[in-house]
C-alpha cells in the first residue's frame, strides 16, 4: 500500500515550467533523495508490521525470540514492530536534518 505514493513520487521527475533559478535544481535532487529515503524506510515499516507481524507470523511463531518466551511473530505484532516504528521516525528525522544542511535548506 505504500506503492502508489512511491510510484507517484518517482514519476514526477519530468521537466517543469517552474522558474529556473539555480536553487530549483537543488530542490529536485533534494526531493529525489527524500523519496529514496522514504522508500527504504517504508519497506522496513511494511516488513516488520505486515510482514513479520501478520503475513508470516505463523511461520515465525515456530521459534522464540532468543532468550525470551515470546513466539517471534507474536512479538513482532505486539512489541517489536512498535519499537521499530519509533526508530524509523527518529532515523528519518536525523537523515533529513543532514540532507537539509547538505542542500542548504536547513531552517535556523
Amino acid at each position: 500500500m505504500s506503492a502508489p505514493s512511491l510510484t507517484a513520487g518517482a514519476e514526477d521527475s519530468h521537466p517543469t515550467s517552474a522558474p529556473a533559478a539555480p536553487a530549483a535544481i537543488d530542490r529536485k535532487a533534494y526531493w529525489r533523495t527524500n523519496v529514496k529515503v522514504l522508500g527504504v524506510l517504508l519497506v522496513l515499516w511494511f516488513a516488520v508490521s505486515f510482514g513479520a507481524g501478520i503475513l508470516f507470523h505463523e511461520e515465525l511463531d515456530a521459534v522464540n525470540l532468543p532468550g525470551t518466551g515470546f513466539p517471534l511473530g507474536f512479538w513482532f505484532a505486539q512489541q517489536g514492530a512498535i519499537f521499530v516504528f519509533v526508530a524509523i521516525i527518529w532515523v528519518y528525522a536525523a537523515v533529513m536534518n543532514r540532507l537539509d544542511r547538505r542542500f542548504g535548506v536547513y531552517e535556523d
Partner: protein
Amino acid sequence: MDTQTWTFVIVGATFALYIGIAIWTRASSTKEFYVAGGGVPPLANGMATAADWMSAASFISMAGILSFAGYDGSVYLLGWTGGYVLLALLLAPYLRKFGKFTVPDFVGDRYYSKSARVVAVLCAIFVSFTYVAGQMRGVGVVFSRFLEVDITLGVLIGMALVFFYAVLGGMKGITYTQVAQYVVLIFAFMVPAIFISLMLTDNPIPQLGFGAELSGELGTRIAGVEATTLLSKLNGLHEELGFAAYTDGSKSTLDVFCITAALMVGTAGLPHVIVRFYTVPRVRDARTSAGWALLLIAILYTTAPAVAAFARTNLIDSVRDAHYDPAAAPAGERGVPEWFHTWESTGLLAWQDKNGDGRVQYVAGAAFAGAPEFTGETGAHGERLVANAPDASANELYIDRDIMVLANPEIARLPAWVIALVAAGALAAALSTAAGLLLVVSTAISHDLLKRTFLPEISEKRELLAARVAAAFAVGLAGYFGIHPPGFVAEVVAFAFGLAASTFFPAILLGIFTRTANREGVIAGMLSGLVFTAAYIVYFKFLGGTKAQLLFGISPEGIGTLGMAVNFVVAFVVSRFTPPPPLEVQELVEDIRVPKGAATPAHAH
C-alpha cells in the same frame, strides 16, 4: 485515607492544575487559538500529541480488548502506532511547510476548489464528533465508577472543565493542558503495570516480564511445580478452557491485514492529529515531534499488551473453579478473590451458577447473551441474580473487558492512592482527546466555513469570537451526546477511521507527492472512496449484512483499505483525462516539498 477520599484529592488536584494552566495560557489571537501561535517546542508537541491521541479507549479499554482477543488484538497495536510512521514520513513535514491552520485549508488550496474545502470540512466535523461523544461518555463513566456520582453529573463536570480551557485557551490552552495530562495518564498507567509485572514475573519492566518465566509472589504459584514462561502457561490455560491459543489468532490473515492497514492510514488522516503538526515552529520540528509523539505513545502501547497477558493469566488462575463464597470453600480449595465481589457490585462482572455447585466455571463461550440485567435478588450463594436466559455453554462468568485495567490495582493489592491515580489517568486521557477534537470542530466552523468560504472580510477579532462560540457550542453538543449516547457509537468509530482512510489520506498524499493530481481527480476520488466505504459499513453494521456476504471476508473495520485503493485509482484515472492543475498550484507543490526558501508570501506566516 480511604480510596474515595484519595480519589477526590488526586482528581481535584489534577483539575486545579488544568485550570491553572488554562488561565496562564489564554489565547489572544486567531493564530494562538488555532495553532498555539506556531511556537510549541517539539517535545511539548510530542507530549500533547500523545495525550491527544490516547483516549479513554486506549487507557481503559485497549488492554481489556487485547486480553480477550490475544493475537487478534494486534490490529489495534500496529494500526494505532504504525499510522505515525506514515504521518511523520508522508504528511506532517509538508503540511507544516504549507502552514495555515487546518486540513481543509490544504485540501481547498491544493485543489483550488471551494467545494473540495467544504467536503473536507464536513468530513472533519463528522469524524471529530464521532469520536468526541465517546470521550464525554468516558468521563461520565469514570466519575460514576470511582466517585459514585451520577454519569450525567460526571459528564457535566467534564464539560465545564473542557469548556473552560478549550474556549478560553484554544489550541494554546489545550496544548499545555495536554502536556500535563500526558504526565498524569502515563504515570497512572505504568505504576500498576510495573507492580503486576513484579508479582507475576519478578521483572519491573512489563515489556520484558511479558516474555519472561513466571516467578515472583503470584507467578510462582500460578506456574505450579514446573518452571514455565508466562505466555506458554497462558496458551496452555487457553487450550484447557477451549479458547484459541493466546498467541494465535482466529481472524483470517487478509482481514487482519486490511483492518491494520485501515487503522494505520486512518490514524494518519485524522484531522485532530494532523493539526498538531501545524503548531511547531519549523519543518524539522514537525519530524522530531512526530518522533517524540510515537515514542511517548509506544510506552503505553507496548505496556498494554503485557498488562493484558498478566491480567488474563491472573484472572483465569484466580477465578477458575473457585468457590463464589470463600467461607464455603472446603479445606484445600479456593474461594474467589475479594475484587470479584467488588466488581460484581458495579455490574461489570456477573456469575450465573448454571450447575448449582457454588463454584465458578470459566470456559470458552458466553455465559448468557448481552450485558447482565440484574434482578435485584440474590441467589443461593449470595450472588446477584441476572434475568438473562443462560447460554447453552458451560461458562458461568460474564466479565466486562474494562475490568482488566480498572481492577488491576486491586488485583495487585496496591494502596488506595494508586486506584485514585488510575481514575485521574483515565480522566486525563478522555479530557485531552475531547479537547483536541472540539478544537477541530470549532476551527472548521470559524476558519474554514466562515473566514475562508462564506465571510472572507470577517475581522480577526470577530473570527476569534466565532471560534469561541463554536467551541462552546461543540462542547454543549458533545456533552449532550455523552449524556444521551446514541446506540451506534461503537459502530461509527469504524466509520471515523474508514472515512479518514478513504478520503483525507489519499487526497493529502496525492497533493504532496504528485504535481498532476487535479481538482476533478481528487474530488472524484474522495467521493468514490467515501461512497464505497460508507455503503459497505452501513450495509454490514446497520442493514443486517451477514458474515457470508463479506467481500473476501473483510470486516467493515478493514474496508477503509479498499476504499483508499478505490480513491487512488479513481483520482489517478480522472486526473489523466482532465486539465492539469494551474501553474501556481504546481509551484505550491514544489514549495511544500522543501523546508526552506522560495515560499511565496501567501504561505509565509
